[in-house]
């Protein structure tokens, strides 16, 4: 072992399997490199090489208070020993004078509470064959981690037991989850590689758990080692990396479970929306099996994600955010986000509604680090059929909330006018293309036929008023209306045709204009 690579006494004492040794003479002079272990006799003090720890495997009673200890310290200091190690039992202590002498001679005294020769063997392995030591830890980690399916916190606990040091889980941004390990200031959560960081002599090892793509960090496993030799820190990195495999395995299994559950929920949810979960229906049994409460008063809400997000990855986080705001809700993944509902025996009052809105606002804030979303809330309705209705309201409200940053993208159905709702519904992905297709024949024609049609319908079928609004002659309006009837093969006297065309105009014009009509 080269002198540069030799661990210091402090690092050696910081190695968990060697924790049975502690300095009896304080914190001083622990930073010298240790090159080996030499056995000495308590009185004759065999010779040691510079940098070696002189170990007395057995000492006579009273030795800690004996002058021979002082004499041995002096001889060892003169030979350049790194420290003197002695077996200690509970009762005996060093004399204050010997402790001072050790500091004066700059020769720390280590007290060993384990069998000294076993300690010496471990220390020698640590000094001369750190890879063997690391392999032993890796072997134990392998055994512990393959025993069963372990979640991230379980993996951290298992590794903490093996390493005998705190091991914690950090979020993708480096925030501690559970608080066992605080990341050091120079930890970089955006560099998705294993990091060995030493600050004030204390070493922290952080290893990323990558997602299925292998590019994004899902979590970090981090171990706080205290004073640690470089070789030991590298060994810990390997052990943590074994831990990341276990976490990834857990995540993959969890993902499969989530998808299976999600599929079940989605199919039941479909049944719910179709009104097939009423009392006595055969699906009701399955719904209660997965914990859905269908009787009582329901208030539904919908979280619509803005942007492209892998919903399943975040379902746990959404549930956790709801729980954190004390919202006891059933949650279901849907195409654009999550729907959920709370259930109570009695109809919720105004206060309960206000509290729910405030809590959902907080939920949205909690999730802001992951994705942005719009939140819609439905009214309170009773039983399975009422739930279906509340869910629909919530979904509609969420749609509107998307375009309403001024309300914090959170909208309650009660705050909406019926027309707005209708229009918003009409602007849905299914209706909008139909509207566009309905009016398509007018697009290529001279004269602003769509605007004329919209103005005419808005004016309640009055051609004269339409002419004033558009600033054209009344005959021009009449001519355009005739062409519109021909092109679209519709009858503007027919109320059904008028309704369909009116909605189509609203949707088309809203979509075409740069700034949507404000509500």
């Amino acid at each position, binding site marked *: 072992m080269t002198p540069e690579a030799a661990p210091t006494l402090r690092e050696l004492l910081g190695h968990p399997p060697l924790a049975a040794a502690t300095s009896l003479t304080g914190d001083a002079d622990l930073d010298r490199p240790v090159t080996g272990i030499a056995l000495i006799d308590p*009185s004759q003090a065999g010779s040691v090489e510079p940098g070696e720890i002189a170990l007395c495997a057995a000492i006579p009673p*009273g030795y800690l*208070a004996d*002058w*021979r200890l*002082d*004499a*041995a*310290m*002096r*001889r060892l*200091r003169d030979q350049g020993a790194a420290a003197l190690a002695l077996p200690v039992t509970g009762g005996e202590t060093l*004399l*204050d*004078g010997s402790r*001072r*002498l050790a500091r*004066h*001679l700059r020769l720390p005294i280590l007290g060993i509470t384990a069998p000294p020769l076993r300690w010496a063997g471990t220390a020698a392995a640590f000094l001369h064959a750190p890879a063997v030591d690391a392999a032993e830890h890796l072997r134990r980690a392998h055994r512990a981690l393959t025993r069963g399916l372990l979640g991230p916190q379980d993996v951290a606990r298992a590794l903490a037991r093996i390493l005998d040091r705190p091991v914690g889980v950090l979020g993708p941004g480096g925030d501690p989850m559970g608080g066992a390990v605080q990341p050091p200031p120079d930890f970089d959560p955006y560099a998705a590689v294993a990091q060995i960081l030493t600050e004030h002599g204390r070493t922290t090892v952080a290893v990323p758990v990558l997602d299925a793509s292998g590019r994004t960090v899902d979590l970090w496993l981090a171990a706080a080692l205290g004073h640690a030799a470089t070789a030991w820190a590298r060994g810990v990195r390997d052990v943590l990396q074994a831990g990341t495999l276990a976490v990834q395995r857990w995540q993959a299994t969890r993902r499969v479970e989530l998808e299976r559950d999600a599929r079940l929920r989605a199919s039941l949810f479909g049944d719910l929306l179709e009104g097939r979960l009423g009392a006595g229906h055969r699906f009701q049994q399955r719904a209660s099996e997965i914990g859905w409460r269908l009787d009582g008063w329901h208030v539904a809400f919908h979280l619509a994600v803005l942007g492209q997000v892998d919903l399943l990855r975040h379902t746990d986080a959404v549930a956790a955010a709801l729980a954190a705001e004390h919202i006891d809700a059933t949650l279901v993944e849907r195409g654009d986000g999550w729907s959920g509902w709370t259930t109570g025996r009695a109809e919720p009052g105004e206060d309960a509604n206000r509290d729910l809105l405030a809590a959902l606002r907080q939920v949205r804030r909690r999730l802001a680090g992951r994705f942005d979303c719009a939140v819609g809330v439905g009214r309170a309705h009773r039983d399975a059929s009422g739930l279906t209705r509340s869910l629909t309201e919530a979904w509609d409200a969420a749609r509107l909330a998307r375009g309403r940053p001024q309300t914090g993208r959170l909208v309650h159905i009660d705050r909406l006018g019926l027309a707005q709702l209708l229009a918003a519904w009409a602007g849905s992905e299914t209706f909008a293309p139909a509207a566009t297709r309905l009016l398509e024949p007018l697009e290529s024609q001279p004269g602003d036929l769509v605007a004329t049609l919209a103005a005419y319908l808005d004016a309640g079928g009055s051609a004269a008023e339409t002419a004033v609004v558009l600033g054209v002659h009344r005959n021009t309006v009449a001519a355009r209306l005739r062409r519109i009837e021909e092109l679209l093969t519709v009858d503007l006297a027919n109320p059904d045709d008028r309704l369909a065309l009116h909605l189509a105009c609203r949707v088309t014009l809203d979509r075409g204009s740069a700034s949507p009509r404000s509500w």
Partner: protein
Amino acid sequence: MPIRYLGEQDVDHLERGTALLGSGGGGQTGLPALLLRRGLAGRRVALLDREDLPGGHVVPIGLVGAVSVFTERLPSGGEWTRVLTAIVERTRVRCDGLISVEAGGGNGIIVFVAAAELGLPVLDADLTGRGLPRLDQTSMAALGEPLTPLAIGTADGRLLVLDGLPPSAAERIVRAALSEFGGWAAIALRPVPVTALDRVAIPGSLTYALRLGARHAACARGAAPYEMAGSLGGRVLATGRVLEVVRDHATAGFGRGSVIIRADRGGTLLRLEMENEYLLALSDGEPVASTPDILCVLDRVTGEPIFCDTVRAGAEVVALHLPGPPFWWRPEVVAAVAPRAFGLDLDPVARP
């Protein structure tokens, strides 16, 4: 050489000198000095050199036991007469004078108290040359000379005469008997022919104590430690504060203890190992002085010697190393008083 006399004016020097030779032990000197002043009562005791006595016998005399009890139960007079009479009757020799069993500590003074009581001269010699705790650590014992017959006794009539026993057995019996004698007793050993004194005793030790005491007295209060050490013919081991005193009464024999002194300069730690006497000095763990040499701890301000049983943490002290009696450095006897004789597993540390 004219015959010298020891009078009251000499007691102060004698007390200082015997305390220094005690190496921290040998028994406190204060009370024996008080007794001597009272016992002299204006008279003088003759202090003879070896040449002043052409022949005859001298009897080694002194006190054995715990000095702490000595201060509680004072000599009532007559104990020296009883033990001397017992020895003289048994050996049928005439006692021409007394020598001290031990020049270090209280026994260096007690011999004059006994001489004043008995009206005998004191010969300038002793059996240890310093403070030593055991009968088998006398010069006679070390040379294989018998100590018996010996007698211990008290003023109230208790008397024990031992004969035909080797020194180690005599030591054990005397030590065991002391509790029956009330903790301490007067002792007289086998008479020594004056002609054999040069061989089996340490001549000149009382004069040496007086000379040492005179030099010590001459050093002004608060004298520089190095000046005092030079004047006493020794060297300074450390000047500083006593950090820690540990006494382990559990170990066999006399209680073992350690004194740790932190030197003012350089932070050097001086550790003194002690039983009844300071036995070994380690400077930063390195042995620097040991028996048979003499180790003294002096109060830094008054210069007074501090005994092993009164040294305490926090005291500002000077630790001195004085040469021990050359007799004990002789190869054939050194083992009797070397550190190993006190259970300290190292060779005597020779003077640098």
